[in-house]
């Protein structure tokens, strides 16, 4: 029988990581994700794992780089200012093509912003964030169970593509408590990490390995494989196009005959779902498309709905970030409106977008 436990979304990250065989954590305290750091500090040592509290998020991201370069599965988690500090390291990891998993439990910004929830890192997360133009797979869960599942998927996709995968949570998902079924997922087998560094004597062929954040700058046989800068760009482009082709994931709710379609992710998707149930009771044909991969984004399904004449309402706790992707998807063929952070129910940082407010907006549009 599958074990069922009651945990927060933040703790579900830990359970997901363990289920994926990750025993290495590096992190720095920042609210509202401290429960993850504390969970790993408590749980990893008894499983023979490694927990390091770094001196900064710059430190965490680079420690993650080093650990993952040896071939182990490793993770770091952060929020707000910490996400900002990590960008240079993330860019290095993108160049070095080291598989890493990062969790961003979003809070309000800009700057130190609030220590509570928010959804204000969407563009930074999906557009790269750091210098030099790269792509990360971004997974956006909307429940504790999904955090657990997507954390496992994150490790699989990171290894599959030798790429960064970001789990995009938020302060509300992280703090909320729900039942979690501890059911580890199995994925297709992956090739051995023959590129990983450790020391010559551990390589079957006895040849040296090089992991470098300046791939393309200097040729180095036999690893890495790129003879020049253009070869690196071509390889990255090919990889990113493959992800866009293979890895788009989304969820729909009451979307089949919907005239109004809500696009939302994370906690606002949960809120919107409740509003949709209420609106359907009043006979309004409203449904939802919830991107599970914020990158690669599900442009196709949104475009199809736009062609069929649906209107779109984007619900997100920011001043408008996800809405840009939706506008790009519909290419002017449908009306797109935004219910954003200005619709919070309370003027202090406690404020959040509530189902009643979403329902009001649906009724206005119907």
């Amino acid at each position, binding site marked *: 029988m599958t074990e069922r436990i009651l945990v927060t979304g933040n703790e579900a990250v830990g359970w997901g990581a363990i289920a994926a065989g990750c025993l290495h954590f590096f992190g720095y305290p920042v609210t509202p994700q401290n429960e993850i750091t504390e969970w790993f500090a408590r749980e990893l040592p008894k499983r023979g794992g490694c927990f390091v509290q770094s001196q900064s998020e710059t430190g965490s991201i680079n420690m993650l*780089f080093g*650990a993952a*370069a040896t071939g182990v599965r490793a993770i770091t988690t952060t929020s707000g200012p910490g996400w900002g500090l990590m960008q240079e*390291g993330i860019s290095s990891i993108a160049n070095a093509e080291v598989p890493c998993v990062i969790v961003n439990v979003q809070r309000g910004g800009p700057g130190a912003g609030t220590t509570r929830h928010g959804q204000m890192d969407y563009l930074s997360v999906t557009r790269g964030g750091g210098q030099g133009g790269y792509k990360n797979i971004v997974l956006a869960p909307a429940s504790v169970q999904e955090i657990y599942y997507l954390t496992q998927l994150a490790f699989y996709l990171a290894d599959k593509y030798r790429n960064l995968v970001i789990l995009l949570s938020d302060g509300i998902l992280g703090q909320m408590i729900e039942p979690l079924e501890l059911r580890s997922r199995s994925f297709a087998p992956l090739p051995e990490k023959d590129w990983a*560094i*450790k*020391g010559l004597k551990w390589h079957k062929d006895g040849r*040296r390995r*090089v992991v470098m954040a300046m791939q393309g700058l200097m040729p180095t046989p036999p690893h890495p494989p790129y003879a020049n800068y253009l070869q690196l760009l071509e390889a990255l482009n090919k990889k990113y196009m493959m992800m866009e082709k293979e890895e788009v994931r989304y969820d729909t709710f009451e979307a089949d005959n919907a005239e109004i379609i809500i696009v939302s992710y994370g906690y606002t998707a949960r809120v919107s779902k409740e509003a949709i149930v209420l609106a359907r009771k009043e006979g309004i044909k409203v449904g939802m498309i919830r991107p599970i991969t914020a990158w690669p984004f599900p442009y196709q399904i949104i475009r199809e709905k736009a062609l069929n004449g649906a209107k779109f309402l984007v619900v997100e706790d920011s001043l408008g970030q996800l809405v840009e992707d939706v506008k790009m998807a519909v290419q002017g063929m449908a009306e797109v409106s935004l219910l954003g952070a200005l619709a919070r129910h309370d003027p202090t940082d406690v404020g959040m977008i509530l189902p009643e407010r979403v329902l009001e907006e649906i009724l206005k549009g119907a």
Partner: protein
Amino acid sequence: MNKERICGLPNIWLSHFAERQECGGCQYPIVYRIIFEVIEEMGIVGETVVVGGAACGAGILLNTPTDTVMPNHGQCIDVATGIKRASPESIVLVFGGDGDVAAIGAGAFLNAAGRAEKFTQLMLNNGHYAMTGGQLAPTSIMGQITSTTPEGRNPSLGYPINMAELAAAIKGVAFSARGAVNNIKNFHQTKSYLKRALQKQMDGVGFSFLEILSACPTGWHMSPLESLKWMEGQMIPQFPLGEFKNVDQL
């Protein structure tokens, strides 16, 4: 002294790297030679992982006979922490410049030392940022002319940081020393320091640190001979050579 070791032919030849375009009189290749000789003499080529970032040393790291990780400028100390924690059986040697260790990576350095991370950190001190054109570094000495201190470093720009002495003051550090490669005596002394530093790592005692003064005639706008004189007359008085800490237990 073991005659065979001194006279025997090394397996790792510095001439393998002769195609590298080092500037005339640069002492980095002497340090490479020390590294290669030491890891071979200690029989640890197969276990060693060399970590180094974007600096004058980057080129040689591409050609070291060991596994290598090249992160970005300032990231090496944290990357090395990750490597050693995930692979404790590897011997991790970090090759950094003074900007890498004493400026952009200073926070990482102090904390890795404080946590007693079990790897060996080298800091090649040439008193300025050589690769970017010779700007002021935390290790530039008083009066030193750099491209961002055209009138020479004066007190309004602060004072140099002595990293080896600083490291020695940290509890988590097992070994800290400063060497130079400006003459044969110092060459051998520095080589023995590196062996001791690596041995501390292998014995799992704590963080080990070795600062090496390195002449940069191009950056200093001097001839190689003038550089050696300047190092002896100006640099060594500010950065005295010697062992500042050597303990078998923290």
